[in-house]
């Protein structure tokens, strides 16, 4: 809608020292987002600070609306999206939950809103540190969910997000999870692409015949009952299924345009070739895990790591392929699911279900770690690997799920 001359800032590729939140704010400017809504909650609020600064500095123009609550914040972008505006918003922890009604409706109405979730522990008690239960809570509702590990990936994933979400074959919202503190408050060297590159990569959002406009009289979201509802849900299911190949194509194109990226958009593999034990986790957990693995490898241990990037759509195929040849899988959850089948974490259960139909199923052990932003140290990783190794050696799992780093 609002088109302005690309800012001088983005005429040449350059590197900057920025946090994950700043990276996402820059992506908003690069993608020339039309409507951005905000309501403060830590750590997401860092994004709104940077967005408002970029706007105030004239780097880009958008309708920047500070709502009176998260509920309205998400309602506004949902409506803006229906009239064809590219949108961005975000929240954290219980703020995200306060918007829950709008969040479910956004997916139901197929609005390609892109949101950043600054992962934060849920109240009570009031805590600010990272925990993944906030974003995970929407996992069944039709949002694509992604966990990033670095500030660079935050910027890149935001660009990918609009491209995939707004694809006419998808039209589903996407949330990008950034671990509070480790990503939202740490500054790293990031390559900032040019507007030209981004414009080439990201076509304008075109809602086509679904766009709410006086020239295109339509009704959105009438009351329906059992007469229509299942068909509507089935459509969302189909869109989510279609998103898999859209993501694959968009990522290939991303790599060509920007000259960086992993082999797969869905997972990151680290030293998995020949690995007997593979650790699986999401987000910034990757850092201590990789350092631990490098040291374990030096000591001759065959350990690898898989970082799940897309949690929705869940990369079942990729994971089956990588994990199928391992002896044991060590799932580290920065979340919990009280009363779940194994009294374990969300990722663990999803993964076990994905691997169930494998002919040779690896052993699976779960670790709950790093809740509320508690650090997961290299020692903790070693400790988990030891427990899994023992299970492999004895062929027996003594305890399916173990809490790591909790004071007795």
């Amino acid at each position, binding site marked *: 809608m609002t088109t302005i001359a690309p800012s001088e800032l983005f005429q040449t590729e350059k*590197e900057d*020292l920025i*946090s994950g939140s700043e990276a996402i704010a820059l992506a908003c400017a690069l993608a020339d987002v039309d409507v951005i809504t905000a309501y403060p909650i*830590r*750590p997401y609020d860092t994004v709104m600070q940077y967005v408002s600064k970029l706007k105030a500095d004239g780097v880009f123009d958008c309708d920047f609306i500070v709502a009176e609550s998260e509920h309205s914040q998400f309602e506004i972008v949902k409506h803006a999206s229906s009239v064809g505006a590219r949108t961005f918003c975000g929240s954290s922890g219980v703020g995200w939950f306060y918007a829950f009604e709008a969040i479910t409706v956004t997916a139901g109405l197929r609005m390609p809103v892109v949101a950043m979730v600054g992962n934060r522990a849920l109240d*009570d*008690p009031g805590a*600010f*540190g990272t925990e993944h239960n906030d974003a995970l809570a929407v996992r069944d509702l039709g949002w694509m969910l992604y966990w990033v590990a670095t500030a660079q990936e935050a910027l890149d994933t935001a660009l990918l997000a609009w491209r995939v979400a707004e694809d006419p074959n998808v039209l589903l919202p996407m949330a990008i999870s950034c671990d*509070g*503190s*480790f990503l939202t*408050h*740490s*500054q*790293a*060297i990031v390559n900032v692409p040019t507007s030209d590159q981004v414009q080439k990569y990201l076509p304008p959002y075109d809602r086509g015949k679904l766009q709410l406009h006086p020239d295109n009289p339509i009704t959105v979201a009438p009351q329906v009952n059992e007469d229509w509802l299942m068909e509507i849900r089935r459509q969302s299911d189909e869109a989510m299924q279609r998103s898999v190949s859209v993501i694959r194509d968009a990522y290939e194109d991303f790599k060509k345009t920007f000259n960086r990226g992993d082999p797969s958009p869905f997972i990151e593999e680290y030293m998995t070739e020949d690995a007997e034990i593979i650790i699986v986790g999401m987000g910034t957990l990757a*850092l*201590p895990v*990789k*350092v*631990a693995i*490098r040291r374990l490898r030096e000591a001759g241990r065959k350990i690898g790591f898989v970082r799940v990037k897309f949690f929705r759509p869940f990369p079942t195929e990729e994971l089956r392929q990588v994990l199928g040849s391992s002896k044991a899988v060590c799932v580290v959850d920065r979340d919990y699911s009280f009363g779940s089948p194994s009294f374990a974490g969300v990722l663990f259960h999803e993964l076990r279900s994905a691997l169930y139909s494998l002919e040779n199923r690896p052993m699976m052990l779960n670790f709950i770690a790093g809740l509320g*932003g508690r*650090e997961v*140290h*290299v020692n903790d990783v070693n400790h988990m690997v030891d427990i899994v190794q023992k299970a492999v050696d004895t062929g027996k799992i003594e305890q399916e799920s173990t809490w790591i780093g*909790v*004071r*007795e």
Partner: protein
Amino acid sequence: MSTVAVEVVYRGIFQKTLARNIVRTIVFAARKEGKIGTAFGRYGDSPERNGIPAKQFAVVADDPEELDETLARYEPTEVDVTINVDDTLCKGVESWAWYGLQPINQLTKPDGTLIVTSWQDADSLIRDMHQKDAPIGLSIVKGTVSFSGLWVYKDDHTDVRILGTLAKVCPQLVSLESMLEAIQEQMDNETKVASAQKSFDLASVRPVEPGEGNPETPYKFELPGWKTMEEGVVIRGIEAGAGFRGGDGGYQPVRSEVFKKYSTRSMRPVINFETCIKCTLCWLQCPDTCFDVTPDGLYDANMESCCGCGVCEAVCPVPDCVTMVSEADFEDNNSQYEMWQEDKQGYNSWMTALVDKQKAETRTHGFHHVGGYAEEISEMTEA
């Protein structure tokens, strides 16, 4: 392997931009030499509270894998240089998250350096610092502590003066040339480059030997386990309290054993017990219930609890009856009321001298500033 870590200890909000400028410029300077780096604030300190001690870090390494080695632990376990931008923090650092009292030099490596901005001399700073069992160096950047509010940045060159000093005391971090280049690029200001150069030339290090400094053991506390903690996120209340110092008259509330707060203070109130009209306002308004009521109805601010907010000074209706003065002038937390009881004349002249000194100084506790920065810069860079 050559990873270099630097921490900046500062007063939340009032010195946030200062700390940020320092850690960011370090990383940009390292970048000039093809190194990689990261800059971050300690999340437990955020959202920052006015004046509450906080930390930011810069970590620089030769390549990304080396950087990861250090960052695998978010908060470094040791740093090559500790930069303290408020000398009163030499007494210790107590963040608003629950860490206990951390000595200012806790993370400083053996043979590392502590840089402090201060007008105080080395001996008086070392008296405040906790003892360490390894030697470190102390380098003083002479100057008035740089405080400003949330929305302003007091550009008194403290950032570049520290960066110039840093290049001298920690040559393994970056060369002076790279530092000056980064300053020019980031701040686009020739005079700031000149200030950094001057500080580099003037910088010197005073060795601090093991055993020098405050012998006290900094207080800490045991964190409960999940089996010992009460369920339902319940914290037991503290008992109400009794008479003044346990006696019959007056009133003294019981205070938390494990949450003292005195390191959060850059200034403390001194009370003129002679002019106090016993109006109760300080006692009523103090956000931390610091005031013990004495048997004769006076109010004694308890310095184990006081966070130095200055509210008592603001609400006291009597001129100069409560005055916030620099924390740097104190070595203990003793009761002012008891001092006054023991020797009224002695107390009064001591207190009046502190009040007069404060009036002549430009030190503030950050909510407002006094004096012109431009004049201060030349005075400080010459020192």
